[in-house]
């Protein structure tokens, strides 16, 4: 729960968090080392100085760290845990659904654990979707199309193998597909941040919600265009939001484009924990106002009502969270970790 300076209580769903192990012990190779270092560079590049972590903690933090940063020090009511396997880089995976579910077990009211699969695994991917549904009752998945898998260095949402997986998701009621759209590396000669496969998949799977993490940045215009066309496409603010600290005017321009094209119902807050912690993000977001000239230019505003939608109401709708019932349940399940 975030309490505004005016005393209003805001329900916060953190749409994008991780519980990873990027420690040297778990790194399979140089790529594993470089992957978590890249995350750490994001962390150090965009965090306020007083929020910086030591690298060793960043590589591997505890479940107690996470509970504390999200729910005790942080304002999250519910956090959506995204699974990212990267088994070619990490011996036990970066953060698997098994590890995430284990972490979430202590406070089941607080977490929505999403699964993940790799369509290139063929039949095994379909079996794994069944397994995740039966074992963890997942409501969503996180897709990482740039993941390496043997000789393959990436895949597209509209590949035939992927479509077979999405058909199964639809059938099983796994309706929220979070898609990481950041830098992809291969094929080498493509414009490297293509988001157009979302357009095909969202058209062909109208019953699934497609949440484009990082809003396709740095292909915001392509994302906005798709979000206008497709009613089932949403934008996750992870990575875009931290600019609110280092480059507030850029953030204003980005959120204005999103409000103008996608609309206030289609934008979801996400901290991308542990790259960033939610407290400072939510505090700064709530205090943020669009500069007058940008407001005029685009004819949009970032009102408290809109902020409330972005911080929680939109995600609650996608994940069928009954907010009043959830508040009551949370009140009845206090934390057993000590607040520091």
């Amino acid at each position, binding site marked *: 729960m975030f309490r505004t300076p005016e005393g209003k209580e805001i329900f916060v769903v953190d749409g994008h968090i991780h519980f990873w192990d990027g420690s040297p012990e778990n790194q399979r190779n140089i790529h594993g080392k470089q992957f978590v*270092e890249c995350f750490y560079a994001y962390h*150090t*590049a965009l965090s306020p100085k007083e929020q910086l972590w030591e690298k060793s903690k960043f590589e591997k933090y505890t479940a107690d760290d996470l509970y504390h940063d999200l729910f005790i020090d942080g304002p999250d009511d519910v956090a959506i845990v995204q699974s990212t396997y990267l088994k070619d880089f990490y011996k036990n995976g970066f953060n698997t659904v098994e590890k995430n579910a284990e972490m979430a077990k202590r406070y089941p009211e607080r977490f929505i654990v999403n699964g993940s699969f790799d369509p290139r695994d063929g039949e095994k991917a379909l079996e794994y979707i069944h397994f995740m549904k039966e074992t963890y009752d997942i409501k969503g998945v996180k897709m990482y199309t740039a993941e390496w898998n043997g000789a393959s260095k990436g895949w597209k949402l509209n590949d035939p193998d992927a479509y077979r997986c999405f058909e199964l998701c639809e059938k099983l009621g796994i309706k929220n597909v979070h898609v990481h759209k950041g830098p992809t590396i291969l094929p*080498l*000669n493509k414009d490297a941040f293509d988001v157009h496969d979302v357009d095909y998949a969202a058209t062909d799977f109208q019953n699934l919600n497609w949440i484009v993490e990082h809003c396709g940045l*740095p*292909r915001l*215009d392509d994302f906005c265009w798709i979000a206008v066309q497709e009613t089932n496409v949403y934008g996750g603010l992870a990575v875009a939001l931290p600019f609110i600290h280092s480059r507030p005017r850029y953030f204003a321009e980005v959120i204005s484009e999103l409000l103008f094209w996608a609309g206030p119902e289609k934008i979801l807050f996400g901290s991308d924990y542990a790259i960033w912690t939610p407290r400072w993000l939510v505090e700064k977001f709530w205090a943020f106002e669009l500069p007058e000239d940008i407001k005029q230019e685009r004819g949009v505003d970032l009102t408290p009502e809109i902020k409330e939608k972005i911080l929680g109401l939109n995600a609650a709708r996608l994940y069928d969270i009954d907010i009043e019932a959830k508040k009551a349940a949370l009140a009845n399940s206090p934390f057993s970790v000590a607040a520091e």
Partner: protein
Amino acid sequence: MTPVRMSAARRSEELWRRLEQVNDPELDEPVTAMGFVERVLIKLDGSVEIDFRLPTYWCSPNFAFLMLDGVRQALDSLSWSPAYRVTLHDHMFAEEVNRGIAEGKAFGEIFGELAGDQDLESLRAIFRAKAFKRRQEAVLLGLRQQGLTDGEIVGMDLSELDAAGFDAGEAAKQKPRYREALLGRWPDRRPDDAAFVTWEGDRIPVDALGAYLADLRSVRINMEFNGALCRGLKHTRYKEMDVIDGEPTLVDFIMDRVPAPAHAT
């Protein structure tokens, strides 16, 4: 100053001037301004060594190649025709790119089947269009700020654009770059031709300028966002360089106790 030292200073100046012409294709910013050129050494015999480092290990190899190819061309154009060595550091394809650049190979030759059937020229074309738009937007906004009406702006010809002056800021910086992009696309443009056309070559109707500027803005937002992220990542990556005995530790870097690297410019 001795003649040798004078010559070294002049060589250094010429080299940096050439390197400043090499742009990150995606950001339309000079690689020198982005801090990607980490070290330049001109030896007494005139030979040149350049260390090049991108913001992350994962930066697209096609962009890395385009930039290093630009560096290669810059070095080939130097007045004293030096031998040179260019090294890309800490990149997932550093070995391949370094070897290929040293052997003067094309991208497709270096990466073989990974490069697929598209050539880099189409990628260059995409980024030429983006650079054109970003530069044009800065000039258009600058003219609006000077109080020109939309009608006056879209009606300008090239000679009038040349006569227009900007004191400072983005418009002043981008005006010569816009002109270069315009003439790069249409080398036969005459002084009485329109100064502002779309990338497709169409005139901009006066009542469509606002919508057109909104399109240009979205192009710029991506590019600037990218640039801000790359700068931030590059900065922190420098802080993450391998620590050698006697060198500062990570904590020193986090605490900002280490001065920024000295630049040759």
